[in-house]
């Protein structure tokens, strides 16, 4: 058992037998009030999220979930199929992979992490940084080269991201999958 103050972002805790991943954890202490941890949790089975609060010394059951490397293969009906190195296939619904859906594109080669709970795959995580191609964006309006001025752009799968003003159609860009933010222009994947 751990206490709430030991739990960090991306740790997984068990509540009523269900695994919840910690998406945000903030410590607060004032006056005589209990020191508290405010946490945003996501149920890895249902996908539901919840804002919660704990006393810093509340006991928590942390679980380490099994993970294996997989890559996206194809979509069949409503299921997204990932394969591991031994060509085992894992099917997940759009709901299971809600957080990575904006970055799923045909032919993507990112090494993802399939997460298992009680022997069943429950979600897939992308690497922190991925590279995607801009499908459409307006031409630079101001000629800014600093990267501080941003403009909208659309990826091949329709996902919209804000990119630096100097980016153009066909450019490859790095995206932080935790925040969805543009990081920089990138080379085309090999």
């Amino acid at each position, binding site marked *: 058992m751990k206490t709430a103050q030991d739990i960090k972002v991306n740790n997984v*805790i*068990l*509540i*009523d037998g269900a695994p919840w991943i910690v998406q945000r954890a903030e410590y*607060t*202490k*004032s*006056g*005589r*009030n*209990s020191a*508290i941890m*405010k946490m945003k*949790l996501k149920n890895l089975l249902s996908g539901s999220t*919840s*804002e*919660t*609060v*704990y*006393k810093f010394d*509340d*006991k*928590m*059951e942390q679980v380490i979930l099994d993970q294996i490397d997989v890559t996206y293969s194809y979509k069949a009906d409503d299921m997204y199929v990932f394969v591991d190195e031994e060509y085992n296939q894992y099917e997940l619904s759009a709901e299971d992979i809600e957080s990575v859906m904006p970055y799923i594109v045909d032919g993507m080669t990112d090494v993802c992490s399939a997460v298992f709970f009680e022997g069943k795959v429950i979600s897939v995580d992308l690497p922190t940084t991925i590279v995607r191609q801009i499908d459409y964006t307006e031409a630079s309006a101001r000629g800014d080269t600093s990267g501080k001025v941003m403009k909208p752009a659309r990826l091949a799968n329709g996902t919209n991201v804000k990119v630096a003003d100097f980016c153009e159609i066909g450019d490859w860009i790095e995206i932080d999958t935790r925040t969805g933010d543009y990081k920089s222009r990138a080379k085309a994947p090999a």
Partner: protein
Amino acid sequence: MKSWDIFCQVIDNFGDIGVTWRLARQITTELHQPVRLFVDDLHTFHHICPQIDPLQDCQRLLGVDIVHWRPDSIVDPSDIVIEAFGCNLSESIISSMLARAQPPIWINLEYLSAEPWIEECHLLPSPQCHGPAKYFFFPGFTARTGGLLRERDLLAERDRFIIEEKAEFLTNLGVEPAPGSSLISLFTYENPQISSWLDTLVAGEASIQLLVPPGRIQADIEHWLGEDKLVLGACYSRGSVVIHPIPFLSQRDYDRLLWSCDLNFVRGEDSFVRAQWAGKPFLWHIYAQDDEAHLQKLSAFLQLYRQQLDAPSAKAMTQFWIDWNRRQDLSEGWTLFTRQRDSLESHAHVWCSKLSMQKSLVESLAEFIQN
């Protein structure tokens, strides 16, 4: 009809039991629902409520069942369980809660604060890995918090008392207000700098009567007076200042003391709230923390309280409160504070009226339980 259990661990002083005892009584009298109050220290309880027999494990007073809470107490929980101020319930009580066909609603009642983060955390769930649903409940000063303890008829009772009973009440305390004199109640923690304040009072022309119940400031006053011990019923005169040691008062009579005085010095949480319902200017001596976290809490309240206060009054109030709580020389702060007394008095009245428009803590609790 729901039944309630309130658990109170007395850390020190009278705030924890003071708040939970008021809460228990209000649930009983205003919601007409049965309440058990579990208290680990009946001797402290006896101080603020002399009818309590510290040697009785179970007793009933004003409709509330009072139980001496021991570490090994076996409890069959009620429909609603309030864990006051983060007092930890034993594993056995939590197991008993889980064993119920319908587990109770478990509420962690927190200390009062004016800090903005309170609003974000109020009523958030705290799902336990092995336990029933638990929720955090934060009292506060805004509509997005759990509100403050306020009896339904409190302000009407206050106004009636001031007209009909104030003079007799003071006489019974042994205090005869002198014409033109200001009455100040003083119930704070220790503060050696009180000597700089008392010196300033004596040097001034205003006639002041200080009403001092037994408490932690008493030794500092004795030191300033050069007396070994304040004697109840005696009057200690120094210049235009008269100090009246008065007895320790029940919650009801302490309210009456606050209503009778022109300015109240209060401390902790319970008397801090009651001073606001008095609608009179006050000074809050906040419970000090080693890491000075209390100063942030003090500032948060000042920021909220002075929002509609004119700038000179806000400045004067802030300086005097901060000087007192930082144990700094009080002479300049007091001089500024007294210059703004009229403005501070009218603001205290407006503040009290504004707070009284919000739901009380018991009303907020009842609404939460119902939903």
